[in-house]
């Protein structure tokens, strides 16, 4: 057990830690019962690992692999995958095709390693015919994908896991509400204020000379989109890892980082990503949405 996750005593409770989805994951709990703390962490850990196993693109026996290697055949999705598929379509429609779960194959051309290696136009153009969720036939629960197209839930998977892990942890506790905060590498959600009715204090890291901030979170979630570590730099131009699925090129003039507060981590994550996709219009977009947000240029 000790290898899967670690649990440490803190001043007002316990913190569970593990790694999942390429992120350090933390479960903060204000409670005094170490056995219950262990159960909550175990529930969150199991859920995170389940989602990772099911939707990872790097495992060749899972559902994701089956979808991406269906060779034009129709496959039937389970309930959870269907819900995610519905959600992906809603986001695609809502964003006029800017948020597209089929755009992941652009990674074959773009390697965001901080270097100055840009792909050629030909490399990008070759990929564009295989991008566009409207080309996928989705008649719940049946999915038919054109050959050579790929789905990638990476843009929502981590936020989805954060929300699901909170649900799973809360299901373990039948008594009085235990204050819990789940944080996967900066994408986080809480189920209300801390034991003393105080808000959770969450730091937002400064990027590229921006200001850091401390957020008091009483309820809901925070998610951050940014290119702090994933970008290309050539001739002093910074190429963000946020790509326009219609051109195959990065969105220029996007802020370095956008953090949004919302009721769930999925919503916060989507809003921050959509804001980044607006490029220089991100601040106006966020203002229009009337969400609490922090932008770093």
């Amino acid at each position, binding site marked *: 057990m000790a290898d899967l996750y670690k649990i*440490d*005593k803190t001043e007002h409770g316990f913190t569970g830690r593990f790694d999942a989805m390429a992120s350090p994951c933390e479960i903060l709990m204000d409670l005094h019962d170490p056995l219950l703390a262990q159960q909550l962490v175990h529930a969150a850990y199991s859920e995170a690992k389940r989602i990772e196993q099911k939707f990872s693109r790097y495992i060749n026996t899972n559902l994701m692999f089956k979808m991406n290697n269906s060779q034009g055949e129709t496959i039937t999705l389970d309930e959870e995958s269907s*819900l*995610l598929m*519905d*959600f992906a379509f*809603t*986001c695609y429609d*809502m*964003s*006029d*095709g*800017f948020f597209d779960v089929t755009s992941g194959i652009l990674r074959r051309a773009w390697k965001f390693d901080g270097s100055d290696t840009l792909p050629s136009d030909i490399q990008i153009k070759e990929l564009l015919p295989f991008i566009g969720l409207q080309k996928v036939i989705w008649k719940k629960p049946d999915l038919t994908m054109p050959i050579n197209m790929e789905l990638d839930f990476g843009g929502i998977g981590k936020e*989805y896991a954060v*929300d*699901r892990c909170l*649900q799973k942890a809360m299901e373990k506790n039948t008594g009085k509400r235990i204050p819990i905060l789940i944080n996967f590498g900066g994408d986080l959600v809480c189920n*209300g204020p801390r034991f003393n009715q105080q*808000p959770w*204090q969450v730091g937002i890291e*400064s990027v590229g*000379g921006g*200001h*850091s*901030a*401390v*957020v*008091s*979170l*009483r*309820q*809901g*979630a*925070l998610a951050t989109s940014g290119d702090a570590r994933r970008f290309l730099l050539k001739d002093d131009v910074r190429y963000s890892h946020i790509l326009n699925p*219609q051109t195959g090129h990065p969105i220029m003039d996007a802020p370095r980082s956008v953090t949004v*507060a*919302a*009721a*769930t981590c*999925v*919503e916060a994550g*989507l*809003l921050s990503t*959509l804001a980044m*996709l*607006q490029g220089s*219009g991100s601040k*106006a*977009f966020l203002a*229009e*949405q*009337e*969400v*609490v947000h*922090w932008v770093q240029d």
Partner: protein
Amino acid sequence: MNNQNRKLKSNKDIRKILTSATGCLLGVTTAGVQAESDTANLEGEWKTDIAVLGYTETDRVSAFEPAIAIKKTFEDESVLGFKLVFDALTGASANGASATGEVQTFTRPSGSGTYITGKDETPLDDTFRDTRINFTANYEQPLSDRLEKIVWGANISNEFDFTSFGGSGTFMRDLNQRNTTLSAGFSFEIDAIKPVGGAPVALTEMQAAGPSTREGEKSRNMVEMLLGVTQVVDRNTLMQFNYGVAVSNGYHTDAYKIVSVVDEVTGVVAPGESLDGKYLYESRPDGRIKHSLFAKVKRNISGDVADASYRFMWDDWGVASSTIDMHYRFNQKSWYLEPHVRYYSQQAADFYHTSITTTQATLLETSGGDLTADYRLGEMAATTIGLKLGFLTPGGNKSSIRLEYYNQTSRASDVYGAQSSQDLVPDVDAVIMQYNYSF
């Protein structure tokens, strides 16, 4: 799809659509969001620390030292701090001469007036009275990526016979996911020394009150380099290593200290030219190179904090010392108790002599050399035991009271004849009390 506007259907529908889509995805209704930025926390208020320290040596010096420090963290995470310390010293301090079976008469540092020490008593100069003001400023400057910072410091100190000015810069870099911190620092200090009545000529005899040959003001400067590594060993353990070297040049002699000249057989003080006894003004080298090695371990033991450190210092005067220092903090919810033990042991400077013989005096007077009888450069050991109680005041501010007892024992380097019946280097006992309050 509206192709003219490649942007989103930017309106509030997006948020509504998203909320309902998320509700379907997660199968729950949520309690909404409540978040606000707490930037006021980041650009902090000025934080103030006040402290009052009292120090009393049995029969000797007493010090009263109030201090105030203020500090502010700015939005760019730079920190500016100032500290003002006021020191008032009163009492008597050992002048370096040895106790004898006779009454001894000494000239005051000013050269006018005398003071008398009874037989079998340690000669103490009771004119010892001083006030000191010390002001320091610090600025901590974070560099581009927050893994590096520079701390700048400036320091000015003034007493009626001593003025000191100094500056420092320390560069720190975090490595290895912030588990390792390397630091390199440089500092300098310039001192102006204006002994009362002028600096006496080294190795000359103390004369009876009245006009005498004195030198004027003196000066000294010092540069120091410090290298350090701090390493997080595991979640609960921190280790620190430092090496420092300080080079100073100029006047190091204590103008107020003398050395008794005694008969090497009887141990009786030799007759002086104008005083009853013969005492030479001390003389220290014009330069000093001091090295120090320091290691510290700090460990969290289920909520309590233990730390232990060892320091080894050595210099080209022959002084070498070891300090072992240990603290253990018992943490409770709103208070803590911290016992403290320190042990210090020192090997004497090459030119330390509790007293010298007439033969040695003649030799020094004719061919020069260095000489001191200052117990602070002699062989000694000191133990400090203390207890600190920290607590929160009813208003929620941090407060602490520290009480310490200090005992120092020395060993005489030279004992002649009747001196064996004297306590040539008596113990020093001191009590230290400090109160701290932060708001």
